[in-house]
């Protein structure tokens, strides 16, 4: 068999393995707040995730994929195409293996940190320090710091707004029925707007600014109408009733909103994390097909499809158990606060996806939860665990790099 065919087959295999791993382990973290707040059952969460991860990956994942494909390594520094091919294969396998190991140990490792660490590691060790686009890498590293901060701030503002608008009044359940549709509109239209403005060009659906605004308003309107209908079906509580009954009703109303934000979160996660699996595949495919190392063509649509598909398969096979475990351990998050964390994280991630920046959705979500905690919305947060999640990049980056270098040498030895 020809070498290029072997490489292509390996690329598909490793890419699928990585996508499967993302679906099996990482999606559960994204959906954790919805399942934990009991806005979705595990079954429904899987369904929502399957649909919207796919949509997010396919429709909006192109820009980040492009970054991973060609934004990190300076292709001009590579003379031998095999170096790039083996390197990308090695990076992909390294990230996938690390994901498998860490998941078995119970650590929520960032798939983004893994693949970026692997690519940079292989490039620096096997080619040289000049092979990396350090300015782009700097922007990526900065986004890793900014994204949890931004989502934290947004979540804080959302929770505070809910406290002021709904809970600080005599009839919170009535105010919830009135105001939650606005939040639904906000969620749906914001996600759509960012996606339309930035994300769709790799599927050939570029929109002008005006079309984007109009489209997002339409989608926002439709989703709000459906949401308002679902809210109206919730039996209202009389004004004289106990405070507790009011609050229970408020939570039921917010649970409708949380279904929307769960979809948004799945969409966002798909849009940003699919690149971790298929960015390297895209690099390999275009190098093999065109024979040249510098890549200027856009990411191929069916590669996005492959990644999206892999994620859904991983989710369907393994993801259910992981999601049940994660959701079971979160007992004290209610929809009126959980939605804020999800919406803040989803907005930040979709913004990053549109800008082509690969960020860690787990870190962003933890930042958002911290934002809710600062607004006094969560009864207890374990700062030690949060710190070790935020510090996990210290291991992930070098381990990813080391594994990539190891696999690269093995590939060079076996096939070079």
């Amino acid at each position, binding site marked *: 068999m020809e070498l290029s065919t072997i490489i292509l087959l390996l690329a598909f295999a490793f890419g699928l393995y990585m996508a499967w791993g993302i679906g099996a382990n990482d999606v559960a973290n994204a959906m954790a707040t919805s399942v934990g707040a009991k806005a979705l059952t595990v079954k429904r969460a899987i369904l929502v995730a399957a649909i919207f991860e796919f949509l997010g990956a396919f429709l909006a994942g192109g820009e980040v994929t492009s970054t991973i494909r060609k934004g990190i390594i300076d292709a001009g520094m590579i003379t031998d195409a095999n170096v790039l091919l083996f390197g990308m294969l090695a990076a992909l396998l390294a990230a996938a293996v690390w994901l498998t190991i860490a998941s078995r140990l119970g650590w929520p490792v960032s798939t983004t940190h893994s693949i970026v660490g692997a690519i940079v590691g292989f490039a620096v060790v096997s080619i040289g320090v000049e092979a990396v686009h350090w300015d782009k890498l700097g922007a990526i590293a900065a986004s890793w710091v900014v994204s949890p901060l931004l989502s934290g701030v947004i979540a804080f503002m959302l929770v505070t707004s809910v406290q002021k608008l709904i809970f600080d009044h005599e009839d919170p359940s009535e105010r919830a029925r009135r105001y939650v549709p606005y939040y639904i509109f906000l969620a749906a239209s914001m996600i759509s707007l960012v996606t339309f403005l930035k994300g769709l060009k790799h599927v050939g659906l570029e929109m002008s600014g005006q079309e984007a605004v109009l489209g997002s308003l339409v989608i926002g309107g439709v989703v709000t109408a459906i949401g308002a209908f679902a809210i109206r079906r919730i039996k209202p509580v009389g004004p004289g009733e106990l405070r507790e009954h009011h609050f229970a009703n408020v939570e039921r109303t917010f649970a409708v909103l949380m279904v929307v934000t769960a979809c948004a979160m799945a969409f966002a996660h798909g849009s940003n994390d699919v690149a971790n699996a298929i960015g390297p595949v895209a690099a390999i495919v275009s190098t093999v097909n065109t024979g040249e190392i510098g890549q200027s063509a856009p990411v191929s649509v069916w590669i996005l499809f492959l990644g999206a598909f892999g994620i859904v398969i991983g989710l369907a096979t393994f993801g259910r158990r992981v999601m049940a475990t994660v959701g079971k351990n979160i007992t004290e998050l209610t929809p009126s606060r959980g939605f804020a964390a999800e919406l803040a994280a989803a907005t930040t991630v979709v913004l990053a996806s549109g800008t082509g920046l690969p960020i860690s959705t787990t870190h962003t979500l933890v930042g958002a939860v911290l934002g809710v905690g600062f607004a006094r919305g969560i009864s207890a*947060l374990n700062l030690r665990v949060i710190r070790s999640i935020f510090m996990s990049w210290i291991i992930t980056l070098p381990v990813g790099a080391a594994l990539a270098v190891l696999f690269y040498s093995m590939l060079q030895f076996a096939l070079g």
Partner: protein
Amino acid sequence: MAVPAYFSGIFGKSPFPSLQKHAAICAEASEVLLQLVPAANSAQWDEVEQLYDTLTRLEHKADKQKRNIRSKLPRGFFLPVARADLLDLLSRQDEIANDARDIAGLMLGRRMQFPQAVQSGVFELVEAAVATCVRVRELVGLFDELLDTGFSGLEAKRVAAMIEEVERLEANTDRLVVGIRKKLFEVETELAPVQAIFFYRVLDMIAELADGAERVAHRVQMMIAK
């Protein structure tokens, strides 16, 4: 870095339900006095002893709950209220059960039967003190709703009103104590001198019960303030 850091691990177990359970135990302990003092006043010492045992049991239960809560609140927890405030609230709340038991122990040990002239007044005082403790239990019970609303706005105002009510109840017990002391002063020469001293002491302790409850309420006030 072998700390398991699964995402759901960032959520710690809420201390508030356990705190509310502890408050319920302490209020229950104070309520035992409502049966104990009349039994002592009618010299039914067997029943007093039984009630004292019940109180001891409750006080141990409160201690166990207190230790449980403290062990589940490591320093690395980020709470919507200051951790130190919460632990202090717990200590002060526990004092209520301790004080109730001390009162019962003294009355049993010294076979304290209040003079006829003040018996109804003493019972009224005990009722007032227990009412303060029960009110504080309701106050702590509001933490759920405070959490829902972010410790602000309407719920916070409601809690502030309840704190004022606790202060009024406590002032009431102070007033009642003054009245009983006056009556006791009138008949104290008829009593054995050591016994008389201890009557005054128990009155102080019952008033102290209400004071302790008020301190818990003030802690809640400090916790809510941002």
